[in-house]
């Protein structure tokens, strides 16, 4: 059998393929050759074949039949074989398959190999993809290597130990003795990996954390040496000595100082030193400053240091490099709760970031802007945020709209401003508004009694312009239904519409294809309400009766009930359709928190295709209540002898508290319509609370004077 082709040759050949099909053909041919070569147990070319297989695996083709071959390579004595074998193991094997456990023995032998590079391969593989079983078996070997004087192996053993601890946290104790003098190493590689190991241990165990707190002075010393030492060519990056180590030490200091005053005290000086002395012209310096800021904000640092940190972030915001700006915004978002005033100083820069071209920066700036809104800056901030809402990408509109509503609710300087703001949001981002916004807005409008005329006029005008944004249409139609009389009565500043125009608009909503069923329900109810506010009752009657045979069940039910109102209970209609009283604010109202993160999605993946279905709990409850009232009134009149003999109208009682000791009375008027002049009888059931406990009382009144019913 001819020797299998070399790896480079194969790569060259495959790259000449012009189509996917051609490539697939070549790959299949080569795979077949490799498979037969594997079957022949050919030791000489196994390495070459596995390397080719790894290349094909990277292109996306299946390579699982090479797994056992990787194991054979690992067990080989040749260094080349081992190198490729371990690489193959890391690429092809994963801990879900039992095959990987076969590696354990090989790795164990190689961890004790005489050549440090073979030991290094074994440590690397174990540290990258060792499963929990493997880690349990080999932890002892790793621990031994952690104590060796060979720095090449020691640094690898440290990171391998990190992996073992992540996989099997119970084994952490085992590595404790070996950490004793890790920090006294001179070698930066060992220092760096030791700090990583200590960080991992401290993050996982509070006991370890308290144990390692004593290392703070040593860490501070090492950091100081790094900053103060002169140029060291081996570790220099743009004039800074070993930035990787500096960042890691700062992170460990953060964890050690987090809830401990003494440790935080011990690091104050060095943090201030790093913060002021680090060169900021390159990314490296800024990386260190960033880590320093995070540490300062997390430990119990003195206020001067905290202000220094926030000022660094403020400077970051003005940096030309957008990565730095992004990082600054992220950090400010984390600190805005605790250091609100300090962050406020940078508000204008943050607001400027809303105009940035980068999506991630815009999102961060938006979240931060909402966090900074307060009673003092609400007008200015809202102007900027509404401008942002106008021009931003669709993925932001929902969150921005919710944020605006929340902020407006909390800090609105006046009711008119509030309603104007809501109007602006509805007209610019109406289809992105969240589900619960509509009932919230209705409640808000109802409660702003003096603004009714203004609101309905503006909403009507908005409706004339555009009926595609459902939340806007729903709120508008509701308002027109409620306050239609104000709309046509000339209380508004501009020329008022006439009744027919208003009804045209509402009817237009009913027939438009743009209206959702929910919107149609709103429109129909609004038209019905106008029957008591407008004079063109006949027209309204006609519209309502048409929809009595609508396909939409909800619409049909409404129309039928409204029809019944017109026909049989016309005298009740005014009472039923009168103005809504002021609603109580329920605790659960209000849009949810602005969602953080995830600024990056492709435009096609965004969920803004259709506006979410809108529920209107408040309105439905109202409607239901009205109808319940109607039904209950009808029911309590029923008489076994002849139903529907009487018709009652119950008015509200004069009070809902009966004063004690006969100091007062509660009166309730009941109007009775008794066309058949039947004898009146009344059964009363009184339910009240007395000293906190409920009491029920039944009584019957049979002795109505004949004049009342004859």
């Amino acid at each position, binding site marked *: 059998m001819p020797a299998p082709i070399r790896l480079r040759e194969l790569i060259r050949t495959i790259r000449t393929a012009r189509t996917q099909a051609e490539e697939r053909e070549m790959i299949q041919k080569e795979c077949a050759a490799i498979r037969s070569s594997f079957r022949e147990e050919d030791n000489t070319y196994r390495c070459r074949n596995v390397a080719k297989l790894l290349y094909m695996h990277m292109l996306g083709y299946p390579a699982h039949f090479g797994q056992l071959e990787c194991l054979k390579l690992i067990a080989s004595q*040749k260094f080349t074989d081992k190198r490729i074998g371990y690489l193959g193991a890391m690429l092809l094997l994963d801990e879900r398959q039992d095959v990987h456990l076969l590696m354990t023995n090989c790795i164990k032998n190689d961890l004790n190999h005489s050549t440090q590079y073979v030991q290094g391969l074994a440590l690397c593989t174990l540290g990258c993809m060792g499963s929990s079983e493997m880690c349990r078996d080999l932890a002892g070997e790793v621990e031994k290597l952690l104590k060796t004087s060979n720095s090449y192996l020691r640094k*690898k053993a440290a*990171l391998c130990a990190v992996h073992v601890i992540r996989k099997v946290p119970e084994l952490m104790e085992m590595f404790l003795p070996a950490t004793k003098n890790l920090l006294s190493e001179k070698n930066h590689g060992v220092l760096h990996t030791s700090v990583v190991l200590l960080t991992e241990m401290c993050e996982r165990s509070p006991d370890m954390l308290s144990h390692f707190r004593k290392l703070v002075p040593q860490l501070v010393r090492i950091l100081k040496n790094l900053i103060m030492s002169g140029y060291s060519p081996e570790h220099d990056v743009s004039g800074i000595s070993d930035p990787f180590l500096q960042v890691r030490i700062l992170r460990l200091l953060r964890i050690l100082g987090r809830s401990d005053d003494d440790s935080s005290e011990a690091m104050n000086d060095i943090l201030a030193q790093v913060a002021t002395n680090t060169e900021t012209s390159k990314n490296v310096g*800024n990386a260190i400053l960033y880590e320093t800021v995070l540490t300062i904000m997390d430990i119990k640092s003195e206020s001067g240091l905290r202000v220094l940190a926030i000022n660094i972030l403020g400077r970051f915001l003005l940096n030309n490099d957008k990565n730095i700006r992004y990082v600054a915004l992220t950090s400010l978002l984390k600190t805005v709760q605790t250091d609100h005033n300090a962050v406020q100083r940078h508000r204008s820069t943050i607001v400027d970031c809303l105009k940035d071209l980068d999506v991630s920066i815009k999102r961060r700036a938006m979240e931060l802007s909402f966090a900074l809104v307060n009673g003092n800056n609400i007008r200015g901030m809202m102007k900027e945020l509404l401008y942002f809402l106008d021009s931003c990408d669709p993925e932001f509109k929902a969150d921005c709209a919710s944020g605006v509503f929340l902020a407006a609710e909390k800090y609105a300087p006046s009711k008119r401003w509030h309603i104007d703001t809501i109007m602006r949001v509805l007209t610019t981002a109406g289809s992105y508004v969240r589900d619960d916004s509509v009932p919230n807005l209705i409640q808000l409008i109802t409660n702003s009694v003096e603004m009714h005329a203004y609101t309905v006029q503006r909403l009507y005008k908005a409706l004339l312009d555009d009926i595609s944004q459902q939340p806007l249409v729903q709120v508008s139609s509701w308002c027109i239904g409620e306050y239609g009389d104000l709309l046509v009565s000339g209380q508004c500043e501009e020329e008022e519409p006439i009744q027919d125009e208003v009804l045209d608009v509402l009817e237009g909503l009913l027939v438009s294809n743009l209206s959702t069923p929910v919107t149609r329900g709103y429109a129909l109810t609004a038209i019905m309400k106008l029957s008591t506010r407008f004079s063109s009752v006949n027209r309204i009657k006609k519209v309502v009766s048409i929809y009595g045979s609508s396909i939409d069940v909800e619409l049909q039910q409404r129309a039928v009930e409204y029809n019944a109102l017109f026909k049989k209970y016309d005298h009740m209609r005014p009472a039923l359709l009168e103005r809504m009283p002021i609603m109580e604010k329920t605790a659960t109202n209000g849009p949810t928190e602005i969602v953080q993160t995830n600024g990056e999605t492709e435009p096609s993946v965004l969920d803004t295709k259709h506006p979410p279905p809108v529920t209107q709990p408040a309105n439905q409850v109202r409607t239901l209540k009205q109808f319940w009232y109607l039904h209950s009134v009808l029911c309590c009149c029923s008489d076994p002898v002849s139903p529907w003999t009487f018709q009652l109208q119950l008015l509200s009682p004069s009070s809902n508290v009966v004063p004690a000791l006969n100091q007062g009375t509660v009166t309730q008027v009941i109007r009775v319509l008794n066309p058949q002049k039947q004898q009146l009888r009344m059964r009363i059931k009184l339910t009240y609370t007395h000293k906190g406990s409920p009491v029920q009382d039944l009584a019957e009144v049979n002795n109505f004077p004949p004049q009342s019913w004859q």
Partner: protein
Amino acid sequence: MQFMLLFSRQGKLRLQKWYVPLSDKEKKKITRELVQTVLARKPKMCSFLEWRDLKIVYKRYASLYFCCAIEDQDNELITLEIIHRYVELLDKYFGSVCELDIIFNFEKAYFILDEFLLGGEAQETSKKNVLKAIEQADLLQENIDFQMRLFAGCQRSRDPTQRAGGNWPDINMVFIISLPHTPSSASYSAVCSLYRLQTQPSSAHNPTQMMFLCICVPQLCLSFLLLF
């Protein structure tokens, strides 16, 4: 770091290093989605993005995108430095590296990465040391295999009496001698030490060792005659 991906502007994967256990299917899915997301970014945008619950740090060097996925508590800016350091290592190793180097020598790119990062963290912060280790390992690959084939059982066992064939110090010596750029004085002294070792009663007299020396270093052949 959870994983690192290198891919071309056409979306072809050139290197993938995973530090978390995932099935092949999941890896493919993540790769496909991430590649699509990163390639859709405009040139002026910042190097960081949030994707699923990870932070992605990416940078473009010529025709290759270097993309790392880090966790919430990791420092994005230093990750950019790590990416840059890896590119510098590749550059130094291949001499003005380009995408083709990584395509045709992908296994070497992996070896360099494995000498720089382990388990997602940097194991060596000195560029010089990483390159030195790679160089040594490469030499080991070239030379030691040849010797390992000649001397069976060169793996050191704990029990010295079980050592068969070549002694480890012997092989080290031979290694030095056979390096082409070893100054001849060093080779000569190494030969002398080898002679001393050979004359000790404990070591086995292995004629094949001598033969090997003669083949590799012809200019020292004369001196070898003395040993015989």
